[in-house]
C-alpha cells in the first residue's frame, strides 16, 4: 500500500496511542512484578504502605542480604547487553551444541545464568570497591521460598502438580487428536451434533460435574466390589481419577481446537496416502501427525494451563497428601495469624506463576495462534 499523506497518523495520535500502550503494559505486568518483589522481602518491608520501602527493602537490607549500587549496575548492564546481543550469542553458541531447538534454547539460558554468576563473582573480586558506590540499597532474602518449599511441603505439592498436569496433557492430546481428525474429515450430521454437544459441555460450570462425581468417587470401592472384587479402588483422592475428570472437562475445547487445526491441512494429503495403500490410521500417523506438531503443541499448552490452573476440581477431589500446588495455597493465605505467613503465601504464589511465565516466554507464538484459531475463522 502506498503511504498516502492522509493515511499517515498525526503526531498527537501516535503519541497518545504509545502512551496508552505503555500504561496498559504497566497495568498488565504490575501486580505480577509486585508480588515477585514482595516475595523476596521481610514482612515489614513487603507489607509496607510506602512503595519505595517495598522495592528497596531497607529492613531486609539491614538484616539479610543486599546488593550495592555497583553490583546493581553490573546486573543491569549484563541484562541489557544480553538482551541486545541474544541472537548473535545464540548463533555463536549453536555452532557448538546441536540438539533440537527446545533443548538447545533451554541449555542456552542455563549456560547464560552460570556465566552471569561467575562474571558477577569475578567482578566483585577484581573491581576495587569505591566507597560511595558500595552503599547497600536493594535488600533481598530467599527465606520465604525456603519455608514454602521445604517446611510447608510445596516440593511434594509440586510433584503432584507435575503428575496431574502431564497426565492431563498426554491423555487429552491422545484422545483429542484422534477425535479432532475424525471430525475434520467428515461432513456427516453426527459430527455436527457431537460438536454442538461439546459446545454445551464446554459451558458447564465445573462444580456441577463435581457434584456428580463426589458420591460415586467416595463410595466407589463398595459400588465396584461386585465387579472387581477386593481390587475395587476408592477413586476419591487419587490423582488418576482427577486426571480423568480434567481430561473429560477439557475434551470439548480440545476437539474444537484440534478440528480447526486439522481443517487447515488439505485432505488431499491423506487421500494420496490412502491411494498409496495406507489405512486411515497409518495415514494419520505417518502423514498428518508430522505436519500437525504446531497444532498439537498449541492444544497441549491449553490442556497444560487447564490442568495446572485448576482449583475447584483438585481441591474437592484430592486429599491432603495428593494435593496439587494451586489448591494448597488456600491453606497459606487463609491463616491470617501473622504477616510472615502472608509473605510465605506470596512466595508460594510466585512459585506457582514461574512455570507459566516460562511457558509464555517459550511458546508465545503457539498461545497466540491457539487463541485466534477458533475465532478468526468462525
Amino acid at each position, binding site marked *: 500500500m502506498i503511504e498516502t499523506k492522509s493515511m499517515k497518523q498525526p503526531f498527537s495520535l501516535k503519541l497518545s496511542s504509545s502512551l496508552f500502550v505503555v500504561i496498559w503494559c504497566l497495568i*498488565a505486568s504490575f501486580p505480577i512484578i509486585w508480588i515477585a518483589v514482595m516475595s523476596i522481602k521481610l514482612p515489614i518491608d513487603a507489607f509496607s504502605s510506602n512503595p519505595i520501602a517495598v522495592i528497596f527493602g531497607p529492613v531486609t537490607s539491614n538484616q539479610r542480604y543486599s546488593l550495592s549500587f555497583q553490583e546493581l549496575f553490573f546486573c543491569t548492564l549484563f541484562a541489557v547487553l544480553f538482551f541486545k546481543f541474544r541472537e548473535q550469542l545464540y548463533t555463536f553458541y549453536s555452532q557448538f551444541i546441536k540438539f533440537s531447538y527446545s533443548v538447545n534454547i533451554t541449555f542456552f539460558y542455563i549456560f547464560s545464568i552460570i556465566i552471569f554468576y561467575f562474571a558477577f563473582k569475578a567482578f566483585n573480586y577484581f573491581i576495587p570497591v569505591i566507597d560511595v558506590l558500595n552503599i547497600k540499597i536493594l535488600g533481598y532474602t530467599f527465606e520465604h521460598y525456603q519455608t514454602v518449599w521445604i517446611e510447608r511441603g510445596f516440593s511434594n505439592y509440586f510433584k503432584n502438580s507435575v503428575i496431574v498436569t502431564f497426565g492431563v496433557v498426554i491423555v487429552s492430546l491422545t484422545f483429542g487428536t484422534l477425535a479432532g481428525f475424525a471430525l475434520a474429515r*467428515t461432513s456427516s450430521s453426527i459430527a455436527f451434533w457431537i460438536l454442538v454437544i461439546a459446545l454445551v459441555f464446554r459451558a458447564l460450570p465445573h462444580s456441577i460435574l463435581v457434584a456428580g462425581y463426589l458420591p460415586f468417587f467416595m463410595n466407589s470401592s463398595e459400588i465396584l466390589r461386585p465387579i472387581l472384587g477386593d481390587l475395587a479402588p476408592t477413586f476419591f483422592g487419587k490423582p488418576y481419577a482427577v486426571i480423568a475428570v480434567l481430561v473429560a472437562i477439557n475434551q470439548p475445547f480440545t476437539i474444537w481446537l484440534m478440528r480447526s487445526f486439522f481443517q487447515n491441512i488439505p485432505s488431499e494429503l491423506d487421500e494420496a496416502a490412502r491411494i498409496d495403500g495406507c489405512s486411515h490410521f497409518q495415514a494419520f500417523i505417518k502423514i498428518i501427525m508430522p505436519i500437525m506438531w504446531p497444532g498439537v503443541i498449541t492444544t497441549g499448552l491449553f490442556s497444560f494451563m487447564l490442568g495446572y490452573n485448576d482449583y475447584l476440581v483438585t481441591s474437592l477431589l484430592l486429599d491432603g497428601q495428593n494435593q496439587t500446588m494451586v489448591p494448597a495455597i488456600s491453606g497459606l493465605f487463609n491463616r491470617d495469624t501473622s504477616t510472615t505467613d502472608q509473605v510465605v503465601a506470596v512466595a508460594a504464589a510466585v512459585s506457582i506463576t514461574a512455570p507459566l511465565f516460562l511457558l509464555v516466554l517459550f511458546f508465545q507464538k503457539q498461545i497466540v495462534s491457539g487463541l485466534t484459531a477458533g475465532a478468526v475463522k468462525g
Partner: protein
Amino acid sequence: MKKKDFYLFIIPSLLMMFFFIAVPLAIVFQQSFYITQNVFQEIEVETCTPGFLKQICKTEIQTKPKLDLNGNLIKVSIFVGLENYKNLLQIEKLKKAVFNLSLNEIENITFWKAFRFTFTFCLITLPLVISLGLLIAITVNNLTQSIKGPVIFISLLPFIITPIIGALAIRWLFVGEGILTSFIEFFLERDIALFASAWTLEILMIIYRVWHVAPFAFIVFYAGLQTVNKETLESAVIDGANRFERLRYIVIPHLMPLIIFVSLIHLMDSYRVFEEIVAFSSQAYVISLQWLTYDFLTPDDTGNRLINRASTSAMLTMVGVTIIILPLLKRTWEDYREGKL
C-alpha cells in the same frame, strides 16, 4: 471417511465425555430430587438403678441413628420431589422481597444473592472487556513492528496466570494497608477498608476479571485487524471519511463476528465466576452461583457434604448456562446450514 473409521477415531473422546460429563449430569439431576438422611430406629431401652430389694427399672423408647456392622451411620436417600428446589429458591420470601422492591431482602436469600451477583458481574464485565480489548488492539496495531512482540508478551501475562493467583495478586495490592489502598487513601484523605463491604469487593472483582480477560479479547481483535481490507480503507479516505468514521463504518463491522465470539466466550466464563470469591475471602459479603455449589460440596465441621443441596443448586445454575449458550448454538447451527462449519 468411512463410518467405521470415524467411530474408531472418535470413540475414546466420546466415552470420556459420556462417563465424566453426561453421566454425572444425569446423576446430579437425579440427586436433586432426593435427600440423604441417617436411618433412625426406635429402641426400647431399659435403664435400671440399684434399689433396695428390687432394682428400679424404667423402659423408654429412644430414637437413635442406625449403625451398620462396621459402626458407620446407615444413610438412605428419600425422594422428596421439588422440596430441595423450594428450600433453595424460597419463592415466598422472594415474592415478598420483590413486592416490597427491597434489594436487601433479596440479598438475604442465599441463592438469589449468588444469582444477583453472578448476573451483574457478567453484564458489567462484558462491555469493559470488549472495549478495553478493542482499544488495546487498535493502539498496538498503530505501533512500529519491533515492539509489538514484547507488548504481546506482557499482555499475555495476566491472561495466562492461574486465576486464583491473579486474584490474590490484586488482593495483596489492596489488602489492609496495601500500597494501592494507601494511594487511594492519600487522595481521599480518609481510611478505607476495601474488603469489608460488598460493593467495594465487587468492584475489585470486576477490576481483576477485566485485567485477566482483556488480553484474550485484545489478541483475538488484533488478529482480526490484520485482515482488514486496506483498499476499502483507502477508498474511504478518498471519499473523505475521517479516522473515527473509518473505525466506525469499516473496522468495527469487520470485527463484528469476533466481537460476538469473544462476548459469548466471556459470558460463558464469567458465569462461572468462582476463584475471585475464594481469593478475596469474600463469602460473607459476595457469593456466586458456582461458589454456592462448591460450598455445599465442601465438608463441614462434622465432615458432611450436602450433596443433594449441591445438586439442586447445580441444576439451577444449569438453567442460566442454557440461556447464555443459546445464541452460540444458534450461530453454530446457521454456520452448519450454510456449510461454513
